């Protein structure tokens, strides 16, 4: 069942390649089918039941590499997010006529396969393969359909992230060689290693570099604003909505429990870097004129907060991180869609020349403010639940950190609302006069996102309950090791 979930998008990608004119419809229906399958699996899922839907067979037996995958609550939530967002992203891209569309949609679906694979892999090697595999489609998407300066920017992005991945690979091989008996890449075997603290410290950096670049955390973020800005909007959505979560997921699954002593040694450094990133990115976002760049920087700020909360190593922080991953995925896709609409209607992303759009396009402005308030964490929206838990978790760790991180929530509200004022409020001018309101298709893209914004904001319990046992189990593993 799980293998179907992983590889169905790839089969669909091949079908899309052959579909010609109908490529986008094939891709959309395939991704909806994938989502339906995932929802069906989520309904059978028992949060307290540990890892479920296990598949385990040898891949390269002589090297201890197995095809082992399964889902616990943490994986389930992220797979749900992935399978929910991909159809939305595909549907949102219907507005554009992409040259060579079959290839485009095939790459998106291939990317989906790799993302699902990353979130369910339980073998270190399998995880690495999917991790790298996710990079190639999005690289090609950005390279072939990106903006003017795409060649330089995407290559920087690729080499930067590959650098991190290769360090992680060295770390994985090192762990593999430490496993007793015939070596194995099994995650459970990694959990039982209990290496000395000095080795864990080095391994921490090998893994953290990979994850920090992917998220990205200050000071590893320099590839991100350019790439987000220059990538075609569906590519940006994939990068920010889902791929960014790979980094945080990696920390939760492959870093914290594997090298807990390394985390106790360097965790504070990671939190400090994350919090610096939050403050730094918020400050830069304040002065951005380009709306897409502003979202890119706000994304760095959000992800910094998630990472800080996760490294706080308590239940609130981790649970907050889980919910916030879900919320951020939804909000950021919504925001980038708004940015794409602005861009394609106004031919500019510079906010200074705009204004008064609320008067000409009330529906647009309404959706805009919903996503905007959700990302500044207004109560009753999804952002609130996550940020509240994260700051709570961080506060238990260190109140000063929480204070700095909390301050930036206010900064977040400032730059977002300023952006809204510049774009939507004020007098309409020559440029914005002709701004057309949302079409049915555009509304249809945003409605599911808005539903999720409020569903999580008002009733987050099912999502929290889904991950809680797994998160507790994870903390038990970590603290169990630390006590030894």
């Amino acid at each position, binding site marked *: 069942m799980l293998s179907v979930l992983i590889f169905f998008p790839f089969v669909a990608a091949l079908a899309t390649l052959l579909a010609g004119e109908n490529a986008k419809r094939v891709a959309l229906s395939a991704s909806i089918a994938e989502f339906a399958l995932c929802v069906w699996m989520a309904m059978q899922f028992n949060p307290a039941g540990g890892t479920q839907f296990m598949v385990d067979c040898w891949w390269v037996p002589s090297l201890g590499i197995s095809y082992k995958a399964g889902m616990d609550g943490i994986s389930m939530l992220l797979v749900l997010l992935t399978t929910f967002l991909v159809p939305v992203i595909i549907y949102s891209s219907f507005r554009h006529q992409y040259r060579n569309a079959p290839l485009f949609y095939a790459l998106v679906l291939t990317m989906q396969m790799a993302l699902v694979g990353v979130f369910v892999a339980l073998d270190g090697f399998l995880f690495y393969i999917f991790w790298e595999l996710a990079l190639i489609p999005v690289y090609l998407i950005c390279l072939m359909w990106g903006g003017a300066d795409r060649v330089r920017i995407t290559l920087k992005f690729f080499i930067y992230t590959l650098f991190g991945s*290769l360090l992680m690979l*060295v770390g994985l091989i090192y762990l593999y*060689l430490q496993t007793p008996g015939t070596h194995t890449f099994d995650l459970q075997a990694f959990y039982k290693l209990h290496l000395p603290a000095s080795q864990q410290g080095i391994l921490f950096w090998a893994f953290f570099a990979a994850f920090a670049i992917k998220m990205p955390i200050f000071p590893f973020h320099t590839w991100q604003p350019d790439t987000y800005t220059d990538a075609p909007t569906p590519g940006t959505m994939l990068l920010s909505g889902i791929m960014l979560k790979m980094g945080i997921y990696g920390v939760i699954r492959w870093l914290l429990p594997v090298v807990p002593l390394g985390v106790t040694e360097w965790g504070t450094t990671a939190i400090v870097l994350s919090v610096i990133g939050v403050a730094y990115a918020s400050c830069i976002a304040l002065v951005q004129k380009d709306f897409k760049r502003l979202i890119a920087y706000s994304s760095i700020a959000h992800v910094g907060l998630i990472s800080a909360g996760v490294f706080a190593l308590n239940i609130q922080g981790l649970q907050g991180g889980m919910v916030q991953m879900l919320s951020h995925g939804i909000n950021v896709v919504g925001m980038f869609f708004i940015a794409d609409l602005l861009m394609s209607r106004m031919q500019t992303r510079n906010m200074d020349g705009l204004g008064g759009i609320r008067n000409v396009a009330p529906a647009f402005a309404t959706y805009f403010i919903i996503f905007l308030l959700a990302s500044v964490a207004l109560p009753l929206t999804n952002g609130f639940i996550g940020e509240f838990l994260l700051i709570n978790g961080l506060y238990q760790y260190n109140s000063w950190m929480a204070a700095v991180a909390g301050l930036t929530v206010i900064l977040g509200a400032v730059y977002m609302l300023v952006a809204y004022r510049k774009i939507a409020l004020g007098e309409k001018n020559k440029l914005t006069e002709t701004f057309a309101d949302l079409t049915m298709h555009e509304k249809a893209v945003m409605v599911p996102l808005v539903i999720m914004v409020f569903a999580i904001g008002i009733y987050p319990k099912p999502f929290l309950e889904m991950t809680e046992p797994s998160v507790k189990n994870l903390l038990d593993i970590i603290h169990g090791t630390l006590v030894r």
Partner: protein
Amino acid sequence: MTTLIILSVLGLVTLFSEIAGYRKAMLPLTFLGLILALAASAMDWNTGRHYLGEMMIVDNFSIAFTALMIVITIAWFILSPDFFHEPSSRIDHFSLIIFALIGAQLLTSFGNMIMLFLAVEILSIPMYILAGSNKGNLSSNEAALKYFLMGAFATGFLLFGITLIYGETGSFNLAEISAALTSRQGNAGAMVVAGILMILVGLSFKVAAVPFHFWAPDVYTGSPTVVTAYMSTVVKTAAFAGFFRLFFICFSASSAVWINTVWILSALTIIIGNITAVYQDNFKRMLAFSSIAHAGYMLMAILALNSYAQQSILFYAVAYSISSISAFGVLLAVSHVTRNDSIASFNGLARKNPLLAFITILAMLSLAGIPPMAGFFAKYFIFTAALQQHYTWLVIIAVLGSLTGVYYYFRVIIALFKGDVEGAEIPMTFPFKATLLFISVAALLLGMMPGWIAGLL
């Protein structure tokens, strides 16, 4: 042994039929001979026979490498048909290539230092001639001369080293030398040290390890592309197989003598090969430096020197050979139209010829070592082998090197999508297309199922 006989007969037959003017029959005959040789090679699997008083030892290691080289040669013959019809080439290519293959086979299966020397010579001399086979072209002549001088120089070192070792141990037989060296328990003596280092220098020349690499870029660029393709696949594979075999059987006991030297050679080769490749605008020259860089990675297997390293060097040779022969295949097709070898001649290929572009992407990803291509697993095996022996810093250098590699391999991929569709259609025969596609798919499948090769040895 049967393989050797078949290949030798084939070499002679092609030589005489060239003289007698049976040109048309030669290509089918060559394929037949190569396939027979391949089959004969496969029959010897797991027999481990010795021939001519241990002059030749046919074990699984040598069979695997021989089979690889025969397969690559077959693919090479399919990919380079034009080469034989060009008026500028008046040399007997068929038999030269076959003779080089014989040398290559001997180089994977020698059991005796004399045989090693003979194998190196049999392999090299046809290559000197082939490098200069485009007689009207100045750079081809330059390549041949440079290759010959450097090669002769290197062989001199090799021979001198062999003599010194013989003087100390009194034997040419690998097993006896190994036993003699083991009995000294690390106290090697000046003659052995000098001998091993001389042999190391000689072989480093042959595999183009830095700082003995200066001949490689010019020779690769100057030779006709088909010859370069053969050099960078079959010749390279054979040289490494011989290198590994000699050090694995003979010098593992006295590793203290050479291990640091090889460490430095490997690190330098990786660093300089990769960094210089970044600055190349000529595709062939870029591949030359990339092949230097790959030599650096393969040297890591010689450092690790255990049975795991044996597997990994075989896998590396397979992955590297199939990826670079498909890269050269694409270059052959493209430069046939554009008449130049620059990376810019790949511009717009993605729209002009999607099949060739797809093959190029797979080849470049594999050379760069990106999963799920075979090249990734090759690097993975080598790195694991080196980490097992605690060469952590070398692995980190290698990781940074392969990162640099991504930059220049991706320049080619970027070029595919750049620019407009212009220029004539690229003519390709069906066997050409099918072979290229088959090789690329093989590189992909090996990346997904590395167990097929990795479990062999």
